[in-house]
């Protein structure tokens, strides 16, 4: 994910808050790829990306008029995205309790090499070993968010974010095996 991300101008956000469909569309276009990457990092499945991204943006359109500080739009949007992804994973876990299918039947993993290079497979495998909250944290860092911005997004302190990030990176390194290293 690129760290030099463009931010939506406040004027565009204000227009979207007034309910202008063109402004809402522009906002979605501006953020759809970043949100898709963020979703994929947390969910780990290609076939769910569009559905979950759509859910996130629908929530955004419906709730944007309640956003008090347009300057904090990005933190707000990625908090919305993170919570939606984690809710989705929780619901999936809960559903498995009530359905007779075993997890391996419902959640067939994408085969290695099916979605990209060995490097991507290695990263997906490593991310899969982490907790969703840690995956979200790493995805926020890849989004180019500063520790302070992540703290705002997660409603946490900067010190707590640094500590959790350190642990998440350690875990990722433990499980990430670069294909070039083998």
């Amino acid at each position, binding site marked *: *994910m*690129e760290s030099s991300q463009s931010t939506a101008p406040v004027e565009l956000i204000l227009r979207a808050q007034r309910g202008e*469909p063109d402004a*809402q*569309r*522009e906002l*979605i*276009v501006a953020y*759809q*790829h*970043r949100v*898709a*990457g963020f*979703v*994929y*990092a947390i969910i780990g499945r*290609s076939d769910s*990306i*569009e559905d979950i*991204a*759509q859910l996130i*943006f*629908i929530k955004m*359109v*419906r709730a944007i008029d309640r956003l008090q500080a347009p300057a904090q739009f990005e933190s707000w949007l990625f908090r919305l995205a993170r919570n939606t992804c984690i809710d989705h994973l929780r619901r999936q876990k809960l559903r498995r309790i009530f359905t007779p299918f075993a997890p391996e039947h419902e959640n067939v993993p994408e085969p290695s090499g099916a*979605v*990209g*290079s060995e*490097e*991507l497979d*290695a*990263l*997906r495998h490593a991310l899969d070993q982490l907790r969703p909250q840690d995956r979200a944290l790493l995805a926020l860092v*890849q989004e180019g968010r500063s520790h302070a911005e992540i703290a705002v997004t997660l409603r946490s302190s900067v010190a707590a974010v640094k500590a959790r990030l350190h642990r998440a990176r350690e875990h990722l390194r433990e499980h*990430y095996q*670069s*294909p*070039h290293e083998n």
Partner: protein
Amino acid sequence: MKTETRAWEQLQRHASAQLRPGFADRVVRAARAGAEAVPSLFSIFALSAATAALCLLAVTLFNTTSRDTDESDFNLAGWQQIAADSEEFAVNL
């Protein structure tokens, strides 16, 4: 660490490619259609109040009707008893 950075970039590209063209238009349409379909708080309260009033009316009606029926049965039985007693009295005369 460079390969990891490359992998994150690939992850981003792969994820972006999963969004079909016209994604933003579909989202805006879905958001608007959903917003229209969602009932207002007032209509939810109005429907709840109407349902509660109907239920109360039904219970009251049922209660009144059943009480009236019981009373009629009691009265009828009383009159039947009086009629039988009168007939018996007339026969004995």
